[in-house]
């Protein structure tokens, strides 16, 4: 099993209600899951816990059988480098690196850089012409495609996408979504897509809804 969440609780200091109130979830390799919910329902928080960006108050988050809960900052960083890839809503590109530098960055961190693979990703995402440009010179859709290429370059086992099309118009969102699904499918990785768009969620085989910190 790729991902196993058992009774995960998360709350923040100063707030009375838990953001996540006992979430359990399983995901197999190659499985694609859409996670929907209202704003503030805890979607991004859940994604952050799975990606090792944050820690749960209680419960168990395990990837390939390994529990994340006892890991320190360095341990969780290792997980993010090698096993999990996160696509952020705000892209989080490094502004001072070129498109090529951004795509290669995470694969280099993971020690799995493959230039041919980078070129192939850039080609399929329509970034060929922009490899030497800087992020500020690209449109939002292009920046999002760079973020996808960067995440997929090290061939992660689990891809987490946090509203990856949230800043795009409908046509661009559809195009990006199709590419993301195809590319993830080819690598056999698992995918959890957080979105508030019912239309995009419907394009993935499995779908869960989060309401007030609980999966329904």
């Amino acid at each position: 099993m790729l991902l196993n969440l058992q009774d995960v609780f998360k709350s923040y200091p100063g707030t009375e209600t838990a953001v996540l109130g006992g979430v359990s979830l399983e995901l197999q390799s190659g499985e694609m899951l859409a996670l929907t919910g209202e704003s503030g329902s805890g979607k991004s928080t859940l994604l952050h816990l799975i990606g090792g960006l944050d820690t749960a108050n209680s419960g168990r988050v395990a990837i390939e059988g390994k529990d994340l809960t006892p890991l320190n900052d360095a341990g969780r960083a290792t997980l993010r480098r090698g096993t999990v890839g996160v696509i952020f809503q705000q892209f989080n590109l490094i502004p001072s690196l070129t498109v090529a530098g951004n795509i290669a960055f995470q694969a280099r961190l993971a020690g799995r850089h493959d230039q041919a693979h980078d070129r192939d990703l850039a080609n399929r995402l329509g970034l060929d012409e922009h490899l030497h440009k800087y992020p500020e010179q690209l449109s939002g859709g292009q920046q999002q495609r760079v973020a996808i290429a960067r995440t997929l370059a090290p061939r992660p086992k689990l891809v987490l996408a946090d509203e990856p099309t949230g800043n795009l118009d409908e046509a661009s969102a559809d195009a990006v979504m199709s590419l993301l699904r195809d590319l993830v499918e080819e690598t056999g990785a698992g995918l959890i897509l957080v979105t508030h768009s019912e239309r995009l969620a419907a394009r993935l085989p499995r779908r869960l809804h989060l309401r007030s910190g609980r999966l329904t």
Partner: protein
Amino acid sequence: MSWTVLAALASYWRRNPLQLVTLLVGLALATALWSGVQAINAEARSSYDAAAATLGEGSYAQITARDGGAIAQQEYIAMRRAGWAVSPVIEGRIDGVRIVGLEPLTAPGGLGPVNLGAGTDLGAFLTGPGQIFARAATLDRLPVLGAQRVIAPDVAPNTVLTDIGIAQRLLGRAGQIDRLIVLPDQPITRRPLSDIAPDLAQATPQGGGDVARLTDSFHLNLTAFGLLSFAVGLFIVHGAIGLAFEQRRPMIRSMRALGVPLGRLIALMAVELAILALIAGAIGIALGYVIAAVLLPDVAATLRGLYGADLSGQLTLRPAWWLSGLAIALGGTAVAASGVFWSLARMSLLSGAQPRALAMAQRGGAQAALAMALLTLSAVMAIWGEGLLAGFAMLGALLIGGALALPPLLALVLKLAEAPARTPVAQWFWADTRQQVPGLSLALMALLLAMAANVGVSTMVSSFRLTFVGFLDQRLASELYVSAEDAAQAATIVAVASDRADAILPILSVDRTVAGLPAEIYSARDHATYRDNWQFLRAMPDAWNRLARGKGVLINEQMFRRAKLDLGDAIALAPDVRLPVLGVYGDYGNSIGQVIVTEALFRSLYPDVTALRFGLRTTPDEAPALRAALRTEAGLSEAAMIDQAAIKALSLSVFERTFTVTTALNVLTLAVAGFAILMSLLTLAAIRLPQLAPVWALGLTRRRLALLDLLRALVLAALTAVLALPLGLALAWALLAVVNVEAFGWRLPMYLFPLDYIRLTALALLAAALAALWPAWRLSRIPPARLLGVFSNER
């Protein structure tokens, strides 16, 4: 992974070269000013050490004649026969070069040319034409002397060492000795000095060269200035590092999210900064070397003029110096970056990624409280602190407290200015200016410190100058000062002058220890010259008449402060002679204590001292005739006669050079502050587009925005200048009333120089305007597309 992260970190600097230049130049300038001063100090100390090591100053007890004259060779021989292990020394000058004659067979080990190395041939040294040892530059200055020249880099600057016999021949003083070095191991059977040579006196070693002690305060002042300049430079470095961190927040967060552990990231950022610090440090050391090389001749002239200390005019590149320069660059960067690393270590991975450079005003309250605490501490130390270190600590607290108080004060003033504004543009201008203060605060603090230092030091120097000129007028009342070669010539001078001069005032002095301190004892003839011209800092009633009756002494301010004497306190001049202090006089420029007694008392206490110098009173019209008569009838050379104007000019020139160095450092510090403003404005220009774009969109032209930016810089610089003035005056007071008293032993009256302050303010405004001109010009030409980009969702 490390290389990938380092390359990504470096890519930031490639994309922001201006910030990189700011950081490197800021640190390089800071290091340059600091290491330049240190190079000068190191060179000076090395010269003092060389002098002390070569001549035994400060290490061995010395025997000299009580009357300050020469010791006869027979007395030396008598002492050797009586068991004294002493070694003779003679000193003199040829063409300004100090000639020192030693006796190598009796001199203590480590002294003189005995240990100079392979080039030393004792036979050649002692016999025939002999050898003279000196640095190459010193040998070049000497005329042909008939002795073999040997280059010896270890000999003190401007000094020649040779055998005593050869020195006596070269100096034309056969059979004379100036002093005897007393070796540490003496036979216990030796006869007392008073039995063998009662006219000789032994002085114990001082534990360090006299010159080194005298010049300590001068070097301490230089060091303090170097430190101040370094602090101003560090403000720039701190600003550059802080800004880079704020702008790199999103990048840092991205890297962490992509799997770079926090510890590794901090370590790699530290490595990155260390590399930059080493590069900037190396540039700074090279610049510091240039600064030191340019200033060293003035420092050497100052030290020679004020203290008679010989300094090598050439700078040596010492490993300890450049290593310490690199260390201070690294240490300074670490201090400047410590806050950033603390913030980085505490930064949440999921915290807001947008730069927060303009939101730093939140710290205002804590900063104002710290400023108040430091200013209070400074006041407390001014009232109760004692010693030079406490004086400098007070200065440090005053300056840092003043700098920290600047941003909250500016915010307050700008808020008050905003209240009466009626038009929307005026309201926006004041509000926006207030918002710029946090981003510009470090540069403005640097400007404040530089201006305060300028006000403080120029007030001190000008006050000193005014006092000094007045003091010279008092002290140099005689129209002509003459020096005799011997007692016979002195008698001739008196005979020739007695017919032509209105008064002959013999100048008699001896060096003695008074009230436990080294001091000069002078005699004063009872004459109107003294009564009319000398002004007391404090005195008992009828002081001159009581002095004339031999009922007391006058002391200088140095003696009064250091020996903690008061009027009426008795001081001992001889075992059976104790006299009360009648008055205290200012004695600016002198570094040691002085006591004035009546001429009759002086002659009874020191009957062997013959007056060889005289002040001659006459009318200015008759002075040339008197001078001519002394030349023809007494055989005095022109060099032995100095008129009042020449002495005043010489004294003032020594004085002017004394402050050349501090003035140069002052100007450099102001230039560094100007650079800080320029760089802050340029970097801020890049990140404040989101604030300008809406105003532009609402109808203000780019040109008008640029003009308002220029005006903003001028307003901020003017407010800073206004606040710098009281801080600078407080600094001047501290220098005059606290540091100067502790360092030199005299207190100077403080005068104000409004025109100087107006000129300085104009200079600061000009610097700020020049610094703001380029960013404003760029703003006036910015493509509208960049302003529109602010409104784009794609950013």
